[in-house]
């Protein structure tokens, strides 16, 4: 009985990681479309979101099936619960990528505008957090996951700095206002992607340690891991 469950759990893990890859790819493509002003790349991302939505439904159904048929407990139960939540976060990250692509589409069809460096930094941090959270999930690494939660502050800080920079841009040259507001939005979407990556990290902590660390100002791990 348990061997069947183990096989199913491994299959589920592969599935969610496959979805993760697609989502990471979408975010990357959207950012690339923004930087290089490529409309057709942006459209690819927007079209591709259908795939992500479908995958999200399939993963959720698979999780419910495992719960009903196997009544898993302890670590198996936590794993499936974590996957269900990570699944949701990933689908929303895909939506954020679509949003970025839509802004990229607009900016590509208008005059170029200077993208603040901080936006570049923010996109690097967010991408890194997404990658690290998925890695932590693969290894069930609670410590690494906690570190990601701390990085969210960095992303928030960068977002603020981007907003300041764009404000300055708008004050200096009012003609850029319409295009600049799109930059505001892109920054916000990237910051949300970082939030979702943080959620995934919190789910990994639950999966690994059985502790729910949401809604708490969680410090980086101390020696005893007390919370």
């Amino acid at each position, binding site marked *: 009985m*348990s061997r069947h469950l183990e096989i199913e759990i491994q299959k589920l893990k592969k599935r969610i990681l496959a979805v993760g890859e697609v989502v990471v790819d979408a975010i990357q493509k959207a950012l690339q479309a923004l930087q290089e002003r490529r409309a057709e790349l942006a459209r690819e991302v927007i079209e591709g979101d259908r795939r992500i939505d479908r995958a999200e439904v399939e993963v959720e159904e698979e999780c419910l099936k495992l719960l009903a048929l196997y009544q*898993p*407990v*302890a670590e*198996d*139960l936590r794993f499936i619960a974590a996957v269900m939540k990570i699944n949701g976060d990933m689908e929303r990250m895909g939506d954020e990528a679509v949003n970025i692509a839509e802004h990229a589409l607009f900016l590509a069809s208008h005059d170029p505008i200077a993208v603040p460096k901080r936006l570049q930094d923010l996109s690097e941090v967010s991408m890194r957090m997404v990658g690290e959270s998925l890695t932590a999930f693969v290894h069930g690494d609670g410590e690494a996951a906690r570190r990601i939660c701390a990085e969210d502050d960095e992303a928030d800080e960068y977002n603020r700095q981007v907003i300041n920079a764009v404000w300055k841009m708008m004050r200096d040259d009012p003609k850029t206002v319409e295009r600049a507001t799109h930059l505001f939005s892109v920054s916000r979407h990237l910051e949300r992607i970082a939030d979702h990556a943080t959620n995934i990290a919190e789910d990994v902590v639950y999966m690994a*340690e059985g502790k729910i660390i949401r809604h708490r100002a969680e410090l980086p791990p101390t020696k005893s891991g007390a919370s």
Partner: protein
Amino acid sequence: MVENLQSGAVPVGDAILSCRNLTVRYGAVAAVQEVTLDIPEHQITAIIGPSGCGKSTLLRAFNRMNDFYLNVTTEGQALYRGEDLYAADVDPVEVRRRIGMVFQKPNPFPKSIFQNVAWAPAISGYRGDLKALVETSLRKAALWDEVKDKLGQSGLALSGGQQQRLCIARAIALEPEVILMDEPCSALDPASTARIEDLFLELKERYTIVIVTHNMQQAARVSDGTAFLSRGHLIEFGVTKTIFTRPARRETEDYVTGKFG
């Protein structure tokens, strides 16, 4: 051993039964090894573990039913409300009146339903109204409505699930404080099992129940606290919810997820 217990996760409640470094041997083989455990009152405590881990032996230690086996030695303490059950001046017959037992295979006496329930109180000197006692006990065991018109019929004529409820009624008739159950549902079909599990929840209010089960889902459904035994040792004892969501010990985790045993 105290380090087997996870502080903060032990079921809260006064201990009605406990054991301290209890070791039970059949000849040279120790079936129960140095177990220390507190059973809280008015709760359902489940004892789980793989076959041969000593859970039935541990259960029987509490009502001195191990005395009937050959070559049994019991070391350490088994306490009932703080008193040593194995002290020299303790009468095992008296122990068994306060601590009742229901067995795996329903074993009603080949007598009438009424006689089944009334016999034990009668022989231990009950002076009240036996008919009322039989009715009360059968009601508490959720069997009265099904048998009230056929109390004279043989107990063996009932179905398996009914027989087991009759055995529960029989045990309750003595008004014990604790009821020990050794895999009470393993010989029953799922529907009867479900009925009896519902019964446990009602019984919990008046009695303390200790149930040995190899069915983990049953332990999860029914109990407040769960103790996990493996090869005679107590590995972990905690609140059931914790044992089944994030147990403290690796062995417990492996057992409840079915990776071994």
